[in-house]
């Protein structure tokens, strides 16, 4: 029903164009006829509907004009208003086809402006306004812990039960983990699959629909059943499209798992990024939370908990309730501080938040561009109507009524607006189609972006409104007394009010362009700074191979250690490999797990300490080029497994990074201090710090490095590792040889390969795209402003040709003329620049959140952009100025 609503409002608005007598007499009936015609058209399809709507509105406007301005009824019969209008449209179209330059310029300008604005508006709509395509999305709430040190973090799995028991404001609470890679065997080629662990009720909360089978139940959770729900895509890829679900068993991490349900293809999990995870893949397999390896560990935070507010509950109330929890929980969980801060956030807001600011900035930028485009179009149309003023005056004198002239102007504006809008919609459609391939990365994948009917309608009306307004202004300008004085005095001497309006438009364009260009410049410099940030490790000439060693084939730590040793030897033996190492998760793009850490001698008064834990082999630091700041790296002396509790075990050792030193041992003395990790329900043994390495930017180039603790693989042989090979040449060349080397050792081993260089690139893809778009807009704005300035000055010169001739006859030199034109032109530009600078200073403060390494009021950027704009303006004025200079004085005087 909504589309009818908006169209009715427009209809009623247009009805007011009629005289009040007519309006009151027939308005209601006309609306009824309108609705019935629309309903009829709707049955014939959307295209018919849109056509009908357009025709109804234009017919309304045309007959309103005729009703208002018509001579009394008893005169010569005229054709139907609509037929006349249609003829005007065709005539206007023909006129424009004879002046292709004008038509093309206007249509292109409008098209690009409207297209860009519509594309960005659709993007904003999909990602910010409606980021969650789930039922009751506005009542979905994310429960998080907020701390000064770590920002927003998730919870340990055990907390789900606590929340369900103690919180009353929700009718459903569930949890999910970020995407984890699991290995899939026993169904075709071994491969890794992105999976997520979810509690019962989670999939329902996100509106998952089954294609067949069932979802996970509380029973599955209780029994920690080995079942899974899969996506349609996983099913098609693994078993083939159309295979019926019948209790197929797959091997996940070498455990048999029964597939119990398949979801429809359009289901997406929301992506939340927190300190704990930056993995952005969307899961294709869902396993019960109880089967998660960290399900019973209270000090490892892997669960994102979400709830749906009960019908009478409010977010504020929910927030108050959950804030009281830490005090209660600290009594049964020693690592929960009584003054910890738990809160409830709207899930939609949380998901959209990372992209909200940049997209809003983009939207503002594109709207500025649209304004500049409209100003240019207005200028062009005004210039044309002023040039036609003479012709209009003659036609008026010959008896054409004001109504007819107005109608014809309307028709012309409509043709321009229509063509421009049509092009704009095409441009927007193309731009939106290109979004996935531009890989904006941070966009919530739960948002499907497509050409928004709403945005297109807005675009259309925007174009229409601009055209109408401008046409009206032009009509007013060229009517009345001004027309007669023009006929009397000749068209070359009067400036007309038009010149004032056009100069004002240029002034506004220049100011807006300056603001846009300054913003673009700041973002470009930000991106440049960002791309030069040292990530702390080598990113080029590295090949990463993700593998999994499931417990069924590698039951003991010894077996895994042996495999890793042999694998490293094999990889190192490949020609072209300089050295090799292994780590459990790659920096920059792997999901990660925060581990509770207890530091000897530092009681946990401020709450538990969490650190990033890495399991690495001896050569890790040198392979990745991470500098050793003090102490030593791991070596073969650390090989015995201290945590096995063997009598001859060597002491457990760890290496920490500089961020740990800064935060916990500010006196700089870290070596030989001890700490222990809370990985299992009971804390592990004390581990001695034997070395300090440089910081690595794990979460993104713009995020500061977090505390990290490195454990030698010999002492913590985990099941999933990434083998890193430092290569001499292009790492991708060695992908196949390394894969074959690994699978030569174990044919069932799934191997997924990537390059850290690619990951680095992906992590700055968004700021790069942003900078590109802004600079694109900025450049377009510069071009349009230059065209606008050129147009106004050229026109002014043409109008004042006679005056110039007079001046020359009285002794003005060519240089004088040049100076005159330049001064007049630059006056407006400089005024625009001045105002623009002030506006830019205010606007860029809002951009602060997007800037990196560059202050909002950066003098070099401001100065550089101003200089550029002035230079371009000078050139734009120079061309007509030079033409003025070259005028032959006698020819100028002769012109009339």
């Amino acid at each position, binding site marked *: 029903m909504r589309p009818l609503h908006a169209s009715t409002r427009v209809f009623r608005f247009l009805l007011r164009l009629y005289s009040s007598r007519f309006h009151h007499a027939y308005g209601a009936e006309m609306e009824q*006829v309108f609705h019935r015609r629309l309903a009829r058209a709707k049955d014939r399809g959307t295209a018919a509907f849109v056509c009908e709507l357009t025709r109804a509105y234009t017919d309304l406007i045309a007959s309103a004009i005729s*009703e208002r301005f018509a001579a009394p*009824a008893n005169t010569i019969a005229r054709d139907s208003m609509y037929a006349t209008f249609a003829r005007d449209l065709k005539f206007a179209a023909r006129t424009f086809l004879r002046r292709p330059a004008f038509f093309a310029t206007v249509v292109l300008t409008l098209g690009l402006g409207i297209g860009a604005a519509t594309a960005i508006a659709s993007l904003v709509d999909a990602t910010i306004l409606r980021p969650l395509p789930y039922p009751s999305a506005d009542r979905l709430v994310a429960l998080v812990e907020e701390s000064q040190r770590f920002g927003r973090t998730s919870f340990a799995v055990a907390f789900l039960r606590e929340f369900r028991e103690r919180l009353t404001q929700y009718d459903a609470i569930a949890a999910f983990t970020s995407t984890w890679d699991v290995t899939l065997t026993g169904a075709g080629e071994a491969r890794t699959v992105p999976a997520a662990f979810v509690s019962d009720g989670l999939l329902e909360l996100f509106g998952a629909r089954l294609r067949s089978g069932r979802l996970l139940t509380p029973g599955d959770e209780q029994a920690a059943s080995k079942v899974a729900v899969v996506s349609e895509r996983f099913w098609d890829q693994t078993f083939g499209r159309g295979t019926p679900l019948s209790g197929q068993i797959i091997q996940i991490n070498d455990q048999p798992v029964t597939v119990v349900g398949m979801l429809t293809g359009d289901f997406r999990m929301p992506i939340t990024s927190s300190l704990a995870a930056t993995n952005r893949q969307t899961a294709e397999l869902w396993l019960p939370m109880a089967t998660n390896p960290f399900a019973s560990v209270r000090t490892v935070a892997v669960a994102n908990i979400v709830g749906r507010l009960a019908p009478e509950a409010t977010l504020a109330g929910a927030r108050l309730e959950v804030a009281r929890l830490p005090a209660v929980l600290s009594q049964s969980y020693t690592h929960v501080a009584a003054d910890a801060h738990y809160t409830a956030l709207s899930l939609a807001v949380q998901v959209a938040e990372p992209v909200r600011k940049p997209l809003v900035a983009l939207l503002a930028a594109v709207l500025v561009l649209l304004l500049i485009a409209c100003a240019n179009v207005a200028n062009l149309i005004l210039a044309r109507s002023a040039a036609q003023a003479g012709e209009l005056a003659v036609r008026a004198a010959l008896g054409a009524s004001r109504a007819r002239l107005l109608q014809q102007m309307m028709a012309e504006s409509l043709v321009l607006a229509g063509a421009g809008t049509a092009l704009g919609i095409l441009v927007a459609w193309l731009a939106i189609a290109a979004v996935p391939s531009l890989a904006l990365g941070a966009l919530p994948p739960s948002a499907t972006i497509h050409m928004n009917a709403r945005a297109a309608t807005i675009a259309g009306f925007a174009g229409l409104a601009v055209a109408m307004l401008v046409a009206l202004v032009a009509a007013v300008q060229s009517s009345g007394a001004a027309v007669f004085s023009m006929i009397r005095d000749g068209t070359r001497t009067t400036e007309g009010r038009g010149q004032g309006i056009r100069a004002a438009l240029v002034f506004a364009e220049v100011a807006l362009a300056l603001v846009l260009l300054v913003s673009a410049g700041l973002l470009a410099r930000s991106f440049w700074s960002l791309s030069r940030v040292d990530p702390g490790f080598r990113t080029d000439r590295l090949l990463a191979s993700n593998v999994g060693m499931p417990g069924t084939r590698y039951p003991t730590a010894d077996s895994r250690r042996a495999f890793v040793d042999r694998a490293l030897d094999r990889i190192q033996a490949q020609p072209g490999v300089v050295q090799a190492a292994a780590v459990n998760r790659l920096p920059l793009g792997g999901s990660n797990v925060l581990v509770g850490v207890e530091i000897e001698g530092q009681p946990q008064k401020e709450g538990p300490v969490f650190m990033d834990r890495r399991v690495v082999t001896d050569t890790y630091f040198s392979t990745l080029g991470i500098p050793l700041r003090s102490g030593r790296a791991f070596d073969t002396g650390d090989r015995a497994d201290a945590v096995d509790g063997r009598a001859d075990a060597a002491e457990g050792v760890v290496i920490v990074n500089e961020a740990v030193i800064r935060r916990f041992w500010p006196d700089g003395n870290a070596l030989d201090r001890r700490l222990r990790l809370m990985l299992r329900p009971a804390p592990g043994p004390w581990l001695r710090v034997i070395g300090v390495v440089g910081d690595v930017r794990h979460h993104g180039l713009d995020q500061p490095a977090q505390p990290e603790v490195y454990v030698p693989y010999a002492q913590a042989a985990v099941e999933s590792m990434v083998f890193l090979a430092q290569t001499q040449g292009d790492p991708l060349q060695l992908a196949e040889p390394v894969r074959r080397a690994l699978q030569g050792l174990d044919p069932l081993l799934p191997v997924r390969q990537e390059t850290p260089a690619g990951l680095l690139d992906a992590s700055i893809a968004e700021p790069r795209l942003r900078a590109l778009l802004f600079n694109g807009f900025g450049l377009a704005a510069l071009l349009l402003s230059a065209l606008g300035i050129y147009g106004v000055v050229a026109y002014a010169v043409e109008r004042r040709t006679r005056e110039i001739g007079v001046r020359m006859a009285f002794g003005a030199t060519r240089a004088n003329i040049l100076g005159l034109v330049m001064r007049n032109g630059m006056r407006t530009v400089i005024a625009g620049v001045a105002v623009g600078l002030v506006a830019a200073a205010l606007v860029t403060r809002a951009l602060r959140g997007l800037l990196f390494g560059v202050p909002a009021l950066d003098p070099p950027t401001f100065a550089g952009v101003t200089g550029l704009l002035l230079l371009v303006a000078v050139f734009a004025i120079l061309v007509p100025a030079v033409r003025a200079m070259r005028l032959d004085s006698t020819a100028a005087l002769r012109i009339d």
Partner: protein
Amino acid sequence: MAARSSVSPDSFLPLTAVSFEILLALAEGGRHGYDIMLEIERRTGGRLSLNPGTLYRALDRLVEQGLLDAAFHRVGEERRRLFSLSPLGSAVAAAEAGRLADQVRAARAVRLLKRGA
């Protein structure tokens, strides 16, 4: 009636296409606005489909000229406006029809139109 008789039907000719269609549609009796539109569509086989703007502008003008009468008419709970031909309107419609018939005869005479077309 004195004022009416001073206005000759011929002074209204030739009628615009839309005006004549409206008069034709009302020849058999009064109708509401939407019905007039439907009747014209039916008669012209969809060729002439009037939008509200044109339709009511034309109706308004015909009422002002005295060719149509507009009266309110109760339909259940609503009041709807019924348009019908005034005596002058009938006369004008007949006059226009006569004029068009003359033109058709002339066209037949010079074989622009076949007999019986």
